[in-house]
């Protein structure tokens, strides 16, 4: 441990030059002392808030505004066991076929499209109960599908989750792979979170029909 502050000789280096103390050449901070003091206090409060948030006290939630709270919610990682593997999927109403079929939406969400950091997965994970967001998702998927595949136009979507049971520890199992919806057994629970209204689907299909190929 370094000697206490009162024992340390005060250096007076030139601007930008290291201060020399007992063979130690100390890089000079550029920030004024007052700024560093304020930063130290704010840094201390930040660290305390991170700890408090993870420790589950809830005080940080009550005191901090949302954008600040967001930055302190970072330590409580994976506290709970997953009950099932959740797969988020979409089925689309194909105008020409007049029925729902699975639609692979990964091309429309190219950021980390194959894992649960995909924007589609994240949107479903965060907003599965917010119809307004799911309706926006529906419009986006329809827009992209109809723009990129005019030969397979859609009028709307069904957004759903699959709950795939996790075997007990130590059970041998096959490696994870993404399967088409049709290949999952009926025993796998499906939950439909959003379905485009029938009238909306018909209207979109009629409008697309009017636009031609």
């Amino acid at each position: 441990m370094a000697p206490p502050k009162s024992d340390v000789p005060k250096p007076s280096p030139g601007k930008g030059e290291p201060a020399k103390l007992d063979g130690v050449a100390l890089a000079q901070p550029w920030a004024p002392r007052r700024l560093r003091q304020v930063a130290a206090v704010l840094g201390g409060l930040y660290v305390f808030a991170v700890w408090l948030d993870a420790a589950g006290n809830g005080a940080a939630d009550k005191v901090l505004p949302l954008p600040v709270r967001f930055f302190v919610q970072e330590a409580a990682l994976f506290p709970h066991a997953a009950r099932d593997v959740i797969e988020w999927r979409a089925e689309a109403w194909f105008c020409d076929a007049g029925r729902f079929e699975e639609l692979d939406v990964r091309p429309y969400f190219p950021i980390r499209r194959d894992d649960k950091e995909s924007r589609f997965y994240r949107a479903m994970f965060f907003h599965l109960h917010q119809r307004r967001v799911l309706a926006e998702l529906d419009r986006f998927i329809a827009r992209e599908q109809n723009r990129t595949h005019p030969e397979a136009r859609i009028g709307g979507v069904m957004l759903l989750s699959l709950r795939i049971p996790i075997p007990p520890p130590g059970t041998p199992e096959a490696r994870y792979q993404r399967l088409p919806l049709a290949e999952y057994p009926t025993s796998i629970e499906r939950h439909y979170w959003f379905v485009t209204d029938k009238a909306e689907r018909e209207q979109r299909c009629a409008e697309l029909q009017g636009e031609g190929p």
Partner: protein
Amino acid sequence: MRRPPRSLTPLDRVRAWLEAPQPIERLELIRIVAPLVLLAFLSSRLIHADHWLSPIGFRVPYLGGSDWRQPLYLPPVSPGVAWTIALLTTLAGLCLSAGLLTRVAAGAFAILLAYLALADRLEAFTVSKLGPMIALALWLSPCGARYGVDAWRRRRRHPEAPLPTHVPGGVIRYFQIFLAAMYSGAGIAKLRGDWLSGDVLWSHLHDNYQTAISWFLVRSVPGWAWQALQYLSLTFEVAAPLWFVLPWTRRPAVVVALSMHAMIGLMFGPVIWFALLMSTLLVGCYAPERWLLRVFRRGAPV
């Protein structure tokens, strides 16, 4: 008659500990490696900047300003602006890592990372939240005084000036305290969750985060071993401040933490960037000084 020297108060001792000079290599390691890890994490987003930040991709609509899922609504930007932000972020991160225009680069990197974390909740993860804090701390510090382009240019202009060997302790102490608090908070959260009795580790190994290594471990590690690993993690994390404060437990704690992060990084696909970022802070803050000196002074004398 002379007065006896005043005894140190606890506050004096804390201040002395906080301000004790630290080897400059600790700070420069974090300055060099952390921005690269942050950019590597961001890379899969930056290459789709238009899908990320502009209306070309899916955007969550404004949710009213009081929804935790949208801490701050920032409207989408045009694709051109999105690409510009991506380019500037990359440049700022690379400059900071190279020690080129270090202070400006660190400040710009902190602002851009904060913007990216808030602009889109769907792409914000723990690394996104840690990034601005790390860049901000680097901005306030004298990082770049050694082992970078700025330092090399300074050395060429003033070859007679002594090379700094230490930095004021504050920034390193800050990272050290942050790590201890982060682990401790994480441990308490796990303790309050399912880690004592549930199969948490095992349960997270079966989805699309699964790697070849995690699948191998799923098949080869006996069921009870997962619970044992959970207890080891809990023991380390909950008492992390103690392990890092006590000199004789510090090095084993570093080894345990690095092993834990290695497992996380290898078993959970993209979580590798979080593992690498935490490992960088850990090595910068707590690795034995002579290890760091050996690495730096052998590789880059300036």
